[in-house]
């Protein structure tokens, strides 16, 4: 399975992703500069965390017009995998690949922490290596991570089981105190209707190496890989 990691001016989690996909999982991975368009050889595009183009105007607003993201749009429309993490999630909502938007955190602070996240359901490929309602701990680091969508969009998301991760307490309960940024319905990560695009604010790539204290995020990448093994 071949991974591509988009690199914008201002990306800062791109190498963390490559460290997981290439360094730990041994999968071919190449960095895709934001001006590149040729991504036909790639199976998975990861849009990493950071502050693309300085996040001027709105987070992800300018990144969506880059050649690499226009190519990613085609990639997604072919049904291939796209994973947006943190700033990557913001970019995917800005370009309409995922519904809703990410706005300023409820308490205005940039939150850099480890939080409990409930895996809502076990679906291919993203969460198949987790148990439904499994509570995991993942790092978050964002100032604009409060998920917002209007009622109709929320109903659609819930009806079609598109919410894959929610902020919770260590017992898996959705309490207001366990919601770090005020996200509506405690939403931390969603997939598109088709299921090939996932966006999430928590950083699974920063919780994939035991040497760094946690491997709770590794199952996400391993789930992706096992999908590939099945389909080959």
């Amino acid at each position, binding site marked *: 399975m071949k991974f591509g990691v988009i690199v914008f001016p201002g990306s800062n989690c791109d190498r963390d992703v490559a460290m997981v996909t290439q360094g730990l999982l041994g999968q071919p991975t190449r960095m895709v500069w934001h001006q590149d368009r040729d991504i036909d050889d790639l199976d998975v595009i990861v849009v990493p965390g950071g502050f693309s183009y300085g996040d001027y105007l*709105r987070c992800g607003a300018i990144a969506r017009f880059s050649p690499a993201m226009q190519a990613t749009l085609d990639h997604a429309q072919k049904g291939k995998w796209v994973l947006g993490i943190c700033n990557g999630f913001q970019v995917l909502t800005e370009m309409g690949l995922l519904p809703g938007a990410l706005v300023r955190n409820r308490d205005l602070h940039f939150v850099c922490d480890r939080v409990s996240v409930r895996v809502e359901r076990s679906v291919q490929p993203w969460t198949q290596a987790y148990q439904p309602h499994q509570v995991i701990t993942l790092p978050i680091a964002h100032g604009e991570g409060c998920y917002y969508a209007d009622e109709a969009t929320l109903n659609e998301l819930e009806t079609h089981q598109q919410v894959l991760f929610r902020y919770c307490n260590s017992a898996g309960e959705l309490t207001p105190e366990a919601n770090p940024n005020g996200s509506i319905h405690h939403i931390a990560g969603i997939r598109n209707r088709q299921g090939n695009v996932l966006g999430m604010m928590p950083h699974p790539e920063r919780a994939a190496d035991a040497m760094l204290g946690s491997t709770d995020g590794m199952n996400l990448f391993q789930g992706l890989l096992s999908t590939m093994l099945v389909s080959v």
Partner: protein
Amino acid sequence: MTQTYHARIYVTLRPSVLDPAGTAVQSGLKHLGYDNVEGVRIGKYVELTLQAGTAEEAEGQLDRMCDQLLANPVIENYRFELVDAIAPASVSK
């Protein structure tokens, strides 16, 4: 023949979207003694200058600019005023 137009663009959060920064400013005003402030919403203001054949053409372009980039229609509304640089006449949208 093209004309020079100035545009003043106002981008505001939709009423249904919470504005924690506005709430913080409201509480700051309250600390200063302005108890009568009932609500604060913070938006963005953009000024730009463009060349266009007619005011209608400029407005059409501004609409597209706002939809595509300057505002995110999921969370924001926008409106703009167009001022003809030669014969100032305000067009509100």
